[in-house]
């Protein structure tokens, strides 16, 4: 069977090369995988993308950050283990990564002082400085990049997705769309569902910014105008088209 079949040009990229390309993009532009509010990301840079705090009444905004490890893709057929909830179908890829979620668990004490616990002997409910819950949180915008009490967790995330045709820099490109996400071992199930939903949205947003021009798939060896694909074949992405 010919490679080009009825077309003039054939291109195939093994999943190792696809992961190399993704690694190159994410290593050179790590901000694609790292987002956070000012307490965590003092300014947008190549390393991270600054975003707004989550607005919430009575606070200057909830400080947060999301950071993903460079995702590892496994093209159908399945080579990497997946949670039983996910199965890799023809034409799909699986994605595994680790997501680090952080919030700045800010004190509500004045001037950033910790409020003594009610059981603490130093706790005086008659103290005029006692936080009655009606004082606004301190606006710590002067402390950007200095999360006061960062609390973070790491979650291993698995996803199933498919390729989409898109454009990057005026060139035809392939993009990555998420179909479903699974996080392992979170109880109760409702919490797992909420976090999975949250991370699905995060992954979709992150992957929407990650695309690879078709020229990169064939290193510019031959000019390809795809008429078939790019699509996932067995452990590779292939495309056929006109010269």
């Amino acid at each position, binding site marked *: *069977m*010919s*490679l*080009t079949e009825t*077309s*003039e*040009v*054939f*291109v*195939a*990229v*093994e999943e*190792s*090369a696809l992961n*190399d*390309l993704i*690694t*190159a*993009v994410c*290593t*050179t*532009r790590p*901000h694609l995988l790292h987002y956070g509010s000012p307490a965590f990301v003092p300014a*947008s*840079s*190549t390393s991270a*993308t600054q975003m707004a705090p989550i607005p919430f009444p009575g606070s200057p905004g909830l400080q947060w950050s999301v950071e993903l490890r460079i995702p590892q893709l496994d093209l159908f057929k399945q080579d990497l283990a997946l949670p039983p909830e996910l199965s890799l179908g023809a034409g799909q890829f699986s994605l595994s990564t680790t997501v680090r979620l952080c919030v700045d668990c800010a004190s509500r004490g004045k001037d950033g002082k910790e409020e003594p616990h009610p059981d603490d002997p130093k706790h005086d409910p008659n103290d005029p400085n006692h936080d009655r819950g009606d004082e606004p949180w301190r606006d710590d915008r002067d402390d950007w990049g200095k999360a006061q009490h960062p609390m973070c967790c790491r979650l291993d995330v698995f996803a199933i997705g498919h390729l989409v045709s898109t454009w*990057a*820099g005026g060139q035809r490109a392939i993009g990555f769309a998420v179909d479903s996400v699974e996080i392992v071992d979170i109880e109760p199930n409702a919490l797992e569902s909420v976090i999975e939903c949250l991370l699905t949205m995060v992954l979709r947003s992150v992957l929407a910014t990650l695309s*690879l*021009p078709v020229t*990169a*798939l*064939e*290193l*510019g*060896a*031959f000019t*390809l105008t795809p008429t078939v694909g790019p699509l996932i074949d067995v452990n590779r992405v292939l495309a056929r088209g006109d*010269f």
Partner: protein
Amino acid sequence: MSEIIAAIDEGAAQQLFDTEVAALGPQATSGSSSLGPFSVSYAVTGTLSNGTVDLIAPATIEIADLRLDWHVDLSFQLDIGDFIPDIHIPQVCVHIPCVGDVCTPKIDIVWPTVTVPVSFGDFLKTTVDLGVALSLVAGVWKVEGIVQGVPSLQFGASTAALLAAIGLAVAAAVAWVPLIGPFLAVLAGAVVAAIGIAGLTGLLGPIITPFVSGTRFPITEIPALFEVLPASGPFDPAVFVTVDSLGAEVQHNPPEDELVVLADIQP
């Protein structure tokens, strides 16, 4: 197994070589050589146009009917005396009574050396086999088709035409020489005979063959540091991958023959 495979079929290879051969443009060279008994200076140009591409596994690209349009400007010194003897007619005097001596003039004709310019063009067709060659030069992987061996160029009828053109050029070049008229046809014929087919092919072969032999036809070039994405903003520098290795071959994948480029990369 290579990480990246790019292949084109014979139809695309035909388009590729049509483009690449046309992009070569005219080639030119000049020098001096021998044309039969003459030393000639020459300036020659040649322009290739593509023939029919046939991919032959494992590593041959045959181009049948590769056409070379060539034009040559020759110039050589012709000593007419080498072909027509100088004429020396001594003075003859006759004594005539009552008149005295009557003498004929002494005639000495020493034929000059003249410059004969010849301008001629024609085309030929040949079949060449290209080998697929790979090189890494100044950070760029180059895949090229290189003509294998020295093709035998058949000049055919053009050599006879060129001989005729030389005869005409000789006649034109010596037309100004006094008293050459009766000898013109003899001179032109003698020069043409002295050169002969062998003399012409002996000149044309070595100066025109290099336009074909050793010619490198670019197939593709890939920077060893390949740009995946261009820079697109202050936080988005250009993204590169390193092309570790590259290969090129002709594969017979029934029912087609395909020109295949193989590559491995790392981030």
